């Protein structure tokens, strides 16, 4: 079984080394590759100096483009499982193995969920997350407690689907669509860290646009999309 962990990194010169070393410590048997999304800082240089395998995109592609790069690399090299792992230190390497174990129980998609422990939380992000969860359940009948989690693992079948299709970015509507197409999804409890450096991709305006997009896509568009196999 070949597992690929790809590490999207955009201006992560301060954290990338730690992230990779942590991964090596906790799961030395899995392959990893850094995907540098056209960083303006020394991310690429640090990877070269430390001998980390690094796919350097010549220009900034953004979240979707980087995710697809990792998936395409996994597809071309015949990996059985692929997962993105944040280059900013938000994800914890010790949860990778439990996710792989869950996957081997016969799932197509495994999500690392921050909210499976049942604790009550507040804040705008949680409200947004809850709304998407609700719609997700409505259209798929499946519970997804943490739809915006960045820790997601997919198997070979999903790698192929994600690679072939224009409209399958790494977002909640994609998972909803894949589940409706017959993919089996499971969640595993994880803990995530506050980001150590750098800014979140989501500003207020972007969050609102994101919410509208997800609602329209999950509630409306999904009924008309051709299923993938």
């Amino acid at each position: 079984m070949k597992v690929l962990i790809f590490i999207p990194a955009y201006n992560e010169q301060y954290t990338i080394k730690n992230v990779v070393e942590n991964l090596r410590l906790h799961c030395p048997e899995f392959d990893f590759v850094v995907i540098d999304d056209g960083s303006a800082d020394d991310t690429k240089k640090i990877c070269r100096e430390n001998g980390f395998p690094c796919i350097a995109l010549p220009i900034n592609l953004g979240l979707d483009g980087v995710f697809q790069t990792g998936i395409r690399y996994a597809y071309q090299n015949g990996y059985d499982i692929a997962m993105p792992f944040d280059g900013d230190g938000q994800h914890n390497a010790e949860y990778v193995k439990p996710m792989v174990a869950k996957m081997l129980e016969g799932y197509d998609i495994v999500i690392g969920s921050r909210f499976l422990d049942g604790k009550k939380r507040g804040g705008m992000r949680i409200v947004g997350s809850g709304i998407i969860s609700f719609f997700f359940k409505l259209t798929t009948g499946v519970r997804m407690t943490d739809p915006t989690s960045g820790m997601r693992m997919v198997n070979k079948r999903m790698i192929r689907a994600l690679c072939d299709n224009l409209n399958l970015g790494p977002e909640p509507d994609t998972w909803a669509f894949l589940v409706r197409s017959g993919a089996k999804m499971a969640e595993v409890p994880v803990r995530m860290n506050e980001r150590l450096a750098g800014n979140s991709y989501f500003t207020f305006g972007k969050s609102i646009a994101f919410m509208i997009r997800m609602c329209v896509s999950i509630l409306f568009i999904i009924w008309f999309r051709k299923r993938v196999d």
Partner: protein
Amino acid sequence: MAIELRVTLIIVSVLALIYIINRIRHSKVNINDTIFWIVFAVLLILISVFPMIIFFFAGLLGIQSPQNFLFLLIIGIMMLRIFTISVKVSVLQDKLTALVQKTAIQDFKEDKEKNNPK
């Protein structure tokens, strides 16, 4: 609002929606780029079915005829859309330029290495 205008708006909006969905079905367009058009078409349908919305806002702005407010609204939304697309085009242009320059420089480096082996 005249019933003729309302019916026309509804028919055109529904046709537009069908066309957009058809494009998505055939994976010919990025979903993110169609959200705007879907929301816009639904808004037009809403306005045609419940013209009170338009009456309310027209009254608020002191516009005599609700049709005029409708046109103003559509023009406003279009202006906003044109601006965001214009921003997008700028970004794309920048990226394309950077990409072309990078490939050209890389080609040049490879040629140089080929012609002057150490």
